[in-house]
């Protein structure tokens, strides 16, 4: 009996290790977790349409940047854009692929979704631990119609480093000098107050369990879990709700054309309806491609997604890039992504 077991183990192993040497076209990408669901959905549809396989793995934005630099993947993805200088140094091209919103959520008995209003500075003071109770005059002043409890505010933030935190702290840095001074903008920061949940899921779990809590999650989580969202005051002074249309409004006001490396951060953008905590997720590729054919496959997939992927994106509560930005991106491909001998990989528009 023992011999049989060993034999079975060995044969199974040998079969597995031999593998099948068949190689269809497979594109690999890795990086940000935020766009993982939509990239896998696009990959699935693209595979059915063309037979090309795209394997995108969510290892985190930091991982995405590291892997594209180390050349272990065909493209990297990051929620936090790289600065033009860093791109230059690493020989990378960067462009936005998809957008989404970050939404503050609360758990306050008797206050329905969308009723609580907050401004950027007040939100920053809550996360700084300076505003400690819900009935603080600063909150009461902008919410004249609401009866706010005297409960202590339980602040919830992300425990893991994340693009969501990067966008959120980027916003707080822009609207609160105190935040910019003491904490700053990064994928993980030294939080002065509160507790950390692992992933959006962890934050959502804490907020839904702890009364009097406030947290921030990606829009899809707030929507899918029917969480109580907050109305935020934007750059123009209007109070706006977190909706797909308002995220898109933030993208429209941005200056994509004049910003090198598309280093555009969509937080605190001008525009009457612009949701102030909006962000884009970026794709990173090498300027000089060792295998032009492989790079062309990547660009074909990305272009297919720009053209055919909008409905799928909206179904999953993402926001597609505006057409004008897509045109700019195609031009960038033609201008900047070259083969080893300098040949163009993507034909100019």
């Amino acid at each position, binding site marked *: 009996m023992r011999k049989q077991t060993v034999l079975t183990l060995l044969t199974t192993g040998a079969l597995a290790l031999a593998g099948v040497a068949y190689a269809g076209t497979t594109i690999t990408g890795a990086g940000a977790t935020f766009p993982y669901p939509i990239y896998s959905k696009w990959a*699935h549809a693209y595979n059915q349409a063309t037979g090309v396989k795209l394997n995108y793995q969510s290892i985190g934005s930091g991982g995405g940047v590291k892997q594209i630099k180390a050349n272990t993947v065909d493209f990297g993805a990051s929620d936090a854009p790289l600065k033009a200088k860093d791109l230059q140094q690493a020989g990378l091209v960067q462009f936005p692929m998809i957008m989404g919103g970050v939404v503050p959520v609360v758990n306050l008995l008797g206050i329905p979704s969308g009723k609580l209003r907050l401004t950027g500075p007040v939100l920053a003071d809550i996360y700084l631990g300076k505003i400690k109770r819900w009935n603080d005059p600063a909150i009461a002043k902008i919410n004249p119609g609401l009866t706010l409890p005297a409960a202590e505010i339980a602040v919830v933030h992300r425990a893991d480093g994340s693009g969501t935190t990067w966008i959120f702290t980027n916003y707080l840095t822009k609207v609160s000098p105190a935040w910019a001074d003491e904490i700053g903008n990064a994928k993980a920061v030294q939080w002065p107050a509160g507790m950390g949940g692992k992933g959006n899921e962890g934050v959502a779990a804490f907020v839904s369990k702890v009364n009097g809590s406030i947290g921030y999650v990606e829009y899809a989580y707030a929507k899918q879990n029917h969480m109580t969202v907050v109305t935020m005051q934007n750059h123009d002074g209007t109070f706006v709700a977190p909706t797909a249309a308002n995220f898109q409004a933030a993208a429209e006001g941005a200056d994509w054309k004049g910003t090198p490396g598309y280093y555009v951060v969509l937080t605190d953008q001008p525009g009457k309806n612009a949701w102030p905590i909006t962000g884009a997720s970026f794709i990173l590729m090498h300027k000089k491609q060792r295998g032009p054919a492989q790079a062309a496959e990547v660009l074909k997939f990305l272009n297919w997604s720009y053209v055919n992927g909008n409905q799928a994106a909206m179904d999953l509560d993402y926001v597609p890039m505006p057409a004008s930005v897509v045109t700019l991106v195609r031009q960038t491909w033609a201008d900047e992504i070259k083969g080893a001998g300098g040949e163009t990989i993507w034909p100019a528009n």
Partner: protein
Amino acid sequence: MAVHIDTRRRVLINKLVMGVSTGAALAGLTMLVWILGDVALKGLSAINWDFFTKLPAPPGEEGGGLANAIVGTLILTVAAALIAVPFGVLAGTYLAEFGKTEKLGAAVRYVSDILVSAPSIVIGVFAYLVIVIPMGNFSGWAGAVALAIIMIPVVTRTTEEMLRLVPIEMREATLALGAPYWKMMLGVIYRAAATGMTTGILLAVARVSGETAPLLFTSLNSPYWLESLNEPIANLTVTLFNYAMSPYEDWQTMAWGAAFLITSSVLALTVFSRIILMKRMR
């Protein structure tokens, strides 16, 4: 009279301690049933024919399964075992047969006991640095090596213990027949210790098949069937981790399904190896 009171007190204390320990045992079992019940309750709804036969579907689409991840996890585990078992068995043999008094033996024993407790995430980072970076891409091999590193010390120590349980008379008898030492080991001692060693190996396999952290930066994951171990391959634990963290209900259900499958197969493996061991003990 004093003796009588003292006895009463002693009996009382005895009863108290007995009650507490019975309670502790019951609490342990309650926890087990509770956790398992929770996983089963949420996981069973995801388990159906498609779960075992189909490739993963993106969120919002009907159907889809984790067939590739199930196969991938099996292959990763087998590959890890193929690396770790010979390594561990031979090293364990050294410890049991030659390393009793040598300094080297003490050092190896000490180091394997520490490696058993090495945090799995650190082992993942290590495999990433020494395999993924030099090879230039994520691969099933890197994952298998990371898992193997976790298995090696477990297999080593179990092998040592099991070989030592073989009665000395058996050795003496074989050697008295004039057999060389290595023949005695291969023909008699390993055979005598085989059941115990198999149990140890199965327990090591059970331990690594539930690991997420060492695979995160090594074998990664994939939504497709595997074609070779030189590319990222699908596996259950990373899929579970990714899906559990997503906002979409169908993916979360899948995640519970994966949790249920992992837990029940690890449990089955453990029970199986316990039964082997118990049969042998009789």
